[in-house]
């Protein structure tokens, strides 16, 4: 009898934990899958299928340290592009320029969720609220 109660409780806790987990998980997946599509349409030509970049023309998206330290700048980079600022990524600077993107914050959030959780990066979900907040601080 006691055993059954305990087993029931464990099962219940398990279900709650799983459904909580799957809610944030679902959110992450929605952002990530949407971002993958947008990345293919808007970024892959330059940054490459595997985020490898192109020689010293276009930086890779595989430098987790760069992405982490500049986390709050990423929305601005995607929104406004980069023109002659010469970022240093993986110890190099790059000759090319990056064009601005005229897309909604939620799409920027999707793309950032995708790139910061692919190519060996693992930084969790970037939400449209994060993006809206970061865009206010663009230089």
């Amino acid at each position: 009898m006691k055993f059954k109660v305990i087993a029931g409780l464990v099962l219940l806790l398990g279900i709650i934990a799983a459904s909580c987990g799957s809610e944030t998980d679902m959110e992450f997946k929605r952002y990530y899958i949407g971002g993958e599509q947008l990345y293919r349409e808007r970024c892959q030509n330059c940054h490459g299928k595997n985020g490898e970049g192109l020689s010293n023309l276009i930086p890779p998206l595989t430098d987790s340290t760069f992405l982490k330290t500049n986390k709050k700048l990423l929305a601005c980079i995607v929104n406004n592009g980069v023109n002659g600022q010469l970022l240093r990524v993986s110890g190099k600077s790059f000759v090319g320029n990056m064009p601005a993107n005229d897309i909604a914050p939620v799409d920027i959030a999707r793309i950032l969720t995708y790139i910061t959780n692919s190519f060996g990066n693992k930084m969790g979900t970037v939400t449209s609220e994060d993006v809206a907040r970061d865009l206010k601080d663009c230089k």
Partner: protein
Amino acid sequence: MRKLAIIIGIVLLYAACKSDGNKATLPIYGNRDTKTDTVDGKPVVDTIYNTIPAFKFVNQYGDSVTEKSLKGDIYVADFFFTTCPSICPIMHRNMLKVYNEFKNVADFKILSHTIDPKHDTVPVLKKYADALGINGNNWWLLQGTKEDTYTLSASYLVSPPQENAKEKFIHDGYFILVDKQKRVRGTYDGTLEKEVDRLIADIKTLRAESNTQIAQ
């Protein structure tokens, strides 16, 4: 009788194998014409193929490049501009593969014609080449007048670039393979990895073909 049939069979098989072994030649593209000459009082018909006409451009080192600079070379041509935000990065990521495969081959070259000569001056092209990581003389980035470049694109059998306010230039992402006789032997979509693998294979075929022709 039976023996004869077997012998004929073997001969036929051998011939089939042989022609199979020789099948590795690439088609010759473009309009062709015939020319009839008289040799020893007899008419001889010759095929005239579409060939790349004479040209004069300047490369990323500031050296002048003409059709004579390519004498005895197989080459691949494409059209691009250094500030192209769309397909050029894909094309040149793929072209780097071709470059790396053949960079130590003396009779092979890559010619990338800029379609934005106003912006892409010799120093700009040199900077681009350095950033791309290419050196030596196997890959030339060529600048010339817009008219010359656009006219040349027609003889490569690709559509001439179009100017457009938003995209600046619209152009095909084709890689064109040209043989030592300046004939077009293949066109490849330079934005597709699979096509670029086909190009690399075809360059090997073409090199083998022209080497045996020289030997003959």
